């Protein structure tokens, strides 16, 4: 078990935005979190990454509380939004910086980025632009690639498919699937795109107003079930 959440609550004013009594994520699972706006997906991710302090409850990553020590940062990589990108760097500088935090040399980083050639589609490297001058979709690519580059055991992505072009969406799905095979990587993805999550995830968690109302193993009926919920 890589993540254990118990009794987790977060309130803003008198509105409870996240209220999870018990949730366990096993190593190697690809988990999709779906729900309408305001369901608490991003807040949950931020608490997982110790960016927001929960009002109650605890989150254990490999048995250690995330709020207490930074051990989890060694094997967790994430990309939530542009707030992750250092926008005045070129994409190369950003990758080198993130790599250096994991003791990767410049040569190592360059070598690693070669695998992403297809994913980048010649839009990212050697453009002579700062990240702030990239389009949203390309900024997203930079963030996701930087997260994957850290060779994480646990990967957290918030709406990774939004802003990506169809080719890149498909490539991202293939990448996640193959990393799960090769390294037993655990992935948490939130998304509004039901097709993509049912395709890539083997477990889907449905949230509504901070509560988990469904926790499904993906099978051929899952997509219909989800569509039924959302159109209801």
């Amino acid at each position, binding site marked *: 078990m890589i993540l254990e959440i118990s009794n987790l609550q977060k309130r803003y004013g008198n509105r409870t935005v996240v209220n999870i009594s018990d949730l366990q994520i096993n190593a190697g699972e690809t988990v999709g979190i779906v729900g309408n706006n305001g369901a608490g997906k991003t807040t949950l991710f*931020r608490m997982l*990454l*110790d*960016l*927001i*302090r929960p009002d109650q409850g605890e989150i254990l990553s490999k048995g250690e509380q995330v709020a207490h020590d*930074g051990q989890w*940062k*060694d094997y967790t990589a*994430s990309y*939530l*939004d*542009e*707030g*992750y*990108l*250092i*926008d*005045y*760097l*070129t994409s*190369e*500088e950003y990758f*080198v*910086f*993130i790599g*250096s*935090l*994991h003791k990767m040399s410049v040569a190592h980083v360059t070598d690693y980025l070669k695998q992403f050639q297809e994913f980048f589609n010649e839009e990212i490297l050697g453009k*002579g*632009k*700062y990240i702030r001058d990239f389009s949203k979709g390309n900024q997203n690519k930079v963030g996701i690639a930087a997260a994957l580059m*850290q060779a994480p055991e646990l990967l957290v992505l918030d709406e990774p498919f939004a802003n990506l072009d169809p080719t890149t969406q498909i490539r991202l799905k293939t990448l996640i699937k193959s990393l799960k095979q090769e390294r037993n990587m655990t992935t948490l993805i939130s998304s509004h795109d039901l097709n993509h999550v049912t395709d890539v995830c083997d477990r889907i968690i449905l949230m509504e107003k901070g509560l988990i109302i469904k926790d499904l193993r993906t099978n051929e009926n899952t997509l219909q079930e989800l569509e039924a919920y959302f159109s209801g």
Partner: protein
Amino acid sequence: MLGTFLDHQWKAFWRSKNKGGTIATQIFIGIIVVYLLGVAFFLGFGMEAFITQFFPGKDVFTVFNGVILYYFAADFLMRMQLQELPTLSIVPYLHLKIPKQKIVNFLNTRALFSAFNVLPLFLFLPFCATAISDVYDSFTALMYVVSILSLTVFNNYAALYIKRRSIQNLKIVPLVFLLIIALGLLEYFKVFSISAISNRVFGFVTTYPLAGFGFTLFAVLTYQLNARYLRSNLYVEELSKNEAKKTSTDYPFLDRFGEIGTLVALELKLILRNKRSRSAVTMSLLFLFYGFLFYKKELLDQDKLELMLFASVFMTGNCISIYGQFMFGWQSSHFDGLMANKIDIRNFIKAKFLMFTLFSTFTTLIACLYGFLSWKILVIQFAAYLYNIGIGTVIVLYFATRNYRSMDLSKGSTFNFQGVGASQWVLGLPYFLAPYVILLPFSLSGAPYWGFIALGACGLTACLTREFWVSFIVNEFNKRKHKITEGFREKS
């Protein structure tokens, strides 16, 4: 339509989340504005008396006429530096069913709402209304007013036009600057004199008042020039910066510090590549001229050195106080990323210490040039330097852990109060008072040099015990980490 635009702008100003931050900031800005206008008004009304007092024996009108073009030349330079182009605010309207001409008109009208356009009115109009209408006649006075208004409008649009052109063609900037420097040198070496020209021009206006409309003609021309240029270039990407190819850089000398060095390099890039940080640091280098104001020969001879300590602390640590007061807000736009990534907070804080030490050492080395005035200055500055890198940095970083305001780095730093909160106001007190608290007992007992030695010793002790202070700041940071990240997520 114009009214609607202006109404939206008005709302945008008052409803912006961070419009000046606290009430204290707004009161402060208000006081400064009222003060400046008051001074201008006072100068305007007392102009006659001032001229007779400062230039005895000279004709009041000769001096006044000589000053006008001088003022507008300086005004033009200031505008080039400080006046902002009103561009981004039109983006939401470009795709709507609004004729381009109206948008251009709005941009041009909006540009008139600037303090630069109010100041000359307060400064010159009282004199026109009193002295000129008394000595000449009210028609001449009226034409003076017309001339001055026209010059203001001319300057306003000429500065904007050059700025707009320079966005598309970067070569214009050095050309304009060379031209200005050349004119300045010609004036300095008395090849020609702006005041003489100004005098002749306005002398002409007094004889033929209608000539004042000549300025109006120029004003209308620049307005038209601007309007035409805007009409044919009303595309978002052409109105905003369009810069040269960016390259990656690294700073090999920082490599030996490992992760700390990497973080310092990151922040150096932040400073160099963002407008606001760049102008803040440039400004702090300009403050190195403070010494000429504070280091007075008589005070040095009489060993009245206490008065100079403020200047020394400020100069050797100006980067620390000016840049550091907004810490960690500079990184607010990517703070989530820094926190979620594998960065040791201890190294993060140590990087700040290292950067401040490098900055302070650099400015102190430059400030050492004041040593040519007197060796005593070197003693004061060295003590101030040790204070800054030992104690000043700790004070600044302590307050940084209480700063929850995000910053927008794309605007210049002069008169920019976005991101200013309570911590910036409180910070100055302990930072500038602490050295005096250490110095005071010694200087009261007539041994100022021992005071400086004590100050230096305190700073040095703090440096040697830095590990302890780093732990202290890390502790404080961790207590409020979530509040800081939450504050930074709220963009203005």
